[in-house]
């Protein structure tokens, strides 16, 4: 458990709420936070009183993504992760599965939630934030929201792309994948990532209203549809996409940087996160 992920229930309103709260780090997700959110979803899934789940955040941003200071820690914690100086391939695969893409991974848990999921997005919605937008059923974005995964252009794409393509189309998805872009809220809405753009001041209330609207449907109605959705996600090969992402994500740590190429994770290791971010900015946006 961590206070940086708060899980709340309003049984009368039939809504659950998950609040991301690590404002001093732009809501960067630590391993503990990933697990807490994952467990929160598991708990809501089992609670018959809950029909809709809202994800929101304290502070200016939804999330800047995974806490990069913990990248190596993920692998060390996995089986076979500590036996050698460089974590084994099996440790990397199991970590990818456990955290994100496997049966109990965060993204799988959200995508396969038997309840309606609503996201209130604002500020930076990077990496984990992008995937929260793709996995949640309904996405309201503040006019401050910006969506992307800059890390991809530093490293290469190492996550599922099937959901992004299903949402925005192949060539548009590739812009986000390869150019290190951010889409602002309006662009994200136009392309098919966001349902509605709201003034930031009204965001949380609007998201709660939307979640409550969804609770008007019978529990059996929500569950019936959700279970057919799981089947159709499989038909659309999203589950294959997740499996591929876990495999490829594990390869990401095998990447060899050639002379002149910027090794972001080495910078983080040697110079610390802030310095690495500045150096990345200089390298990629001269």
């Amino acid at each position, binding site marked *: 458990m961590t206070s940086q992920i708060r899980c709340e229930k309003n049984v009368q309103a039939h809504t659950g709420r998950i609040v991301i709260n690590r404002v001093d780090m732009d809501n960067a997700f630590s391993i503990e936070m990933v697990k807490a959110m994952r467990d929160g979803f598991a708990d809501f899934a089992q609670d018959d009183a809950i029909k809709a789940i809202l994800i929101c955040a304290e502070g200016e941003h939804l999330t800047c993504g995974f806490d990069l200071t913990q990248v190596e820690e993920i692998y060390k914690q996995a089986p076979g992760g500590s036996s050698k100086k460089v974590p084994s391939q099996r440790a990397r695969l199991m970590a990818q599965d456990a955290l994100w893409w496997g049966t109990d991974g965060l993204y799988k848990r959200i995508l396969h939630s038997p309840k309606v999921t609503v996201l209130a997005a604002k500020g930076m919605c990077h990496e984990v934030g992008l995937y929260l937008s793709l996995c949640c059923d309904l996405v309201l974005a503040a006019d401050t929201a910006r969506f992307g995964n800059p890390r991809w252009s530093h490293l290469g794409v190492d996550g599922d792309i*099937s959901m992004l393509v299903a949402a925005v189309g192949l060539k548009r998805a590739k812009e986000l994948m*390869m150019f290190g872009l951010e889409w602002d809220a309006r662009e994200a809405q136009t392309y098919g990532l966001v349902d509605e753009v709201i003034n930031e001041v009204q965001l949380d209330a609007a998201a709660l209203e939307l979640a409550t609207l969804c609770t008007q449907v019978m529990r059996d109605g929500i569950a019936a549809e959700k279970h057919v959705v799981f089947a159709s996600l499989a038909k659309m090969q999203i589950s294959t996409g997740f499996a*591929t992402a876990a495999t490829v994500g594990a390869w990401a740590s095998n990447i060899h940087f050639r002379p002149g190429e910027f090794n972001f994770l080495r910078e983080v290791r040697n110079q610390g996160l802030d310095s690495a971010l500045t150096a990345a900015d200089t390298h990629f946006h001269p």
Partner: protein
Amino acid sequence: MIHVTETGAVATITLRDCEPLSRHDIDFAMQLRDAVRDTADSNTIKAIVICASGPDFSPPSSPTDLLKAAEMFSGAMRHKWHAAYCAPSGLYQNLAYCKKVLLTAVQGRCAGAGSMLVLCSDFTVCASRSSFESPFATLPESSLVLAALTMRLNRAKSWMLGPQAWNSEQAVQAGLVNRAVDAALVSSQAQTMAQLAARMPLDGIAMTKLLAEAFLDTQGVGQDFDMAGFYCDSMAAALHARRSQQRGASA
């Protein structure tokens, strides 16, 4: 006929236009395939831009040329045609599954094979006055699955069945084209986008492309190419019927 230059991590392949491909010229397809494959194989190249020196990236073919082209895929040459255009080692699969980032820079009209090149590339820049005709009326190797993945299902059907070619605005809105710019800026915009993509580490591009290739195959793109051979005879019959109708109308 095909000119290749390299600037840093970006290779530029210049054709006069795609007309020989619309005609199903086998030698030309192999030359372009080789150019793409060889540049993709280089350890210094990360992005490849395909552009045309002529006024149109891919001018529409005349009805007579289309009939001659149909000979390639429905006559004695069909196996060679299949190997050159449809097979995994053929032109379009080398483009759609290219190991490096692939961009098309489109000036003027884009019909037939040019539209298929656009579908197979990762990114497309066009001139604001460019137009895009669907490739489905003339190329049995054109991929409707790739079109649907790019622009959603009904838009792909609209493109195929609708009376008019798309203008650049429609093409951008549908997601077929990434950017439409003034004609004078097409080339530089394509180079800028290529440079942007080339910032990714070489291994990162390999990883990205492996993911993308796996994805395309889960969606049926590979199978769509496999089916091309089955469409040849009916495509040829359709082209002949259209020619007869046009002759009848002008008589």
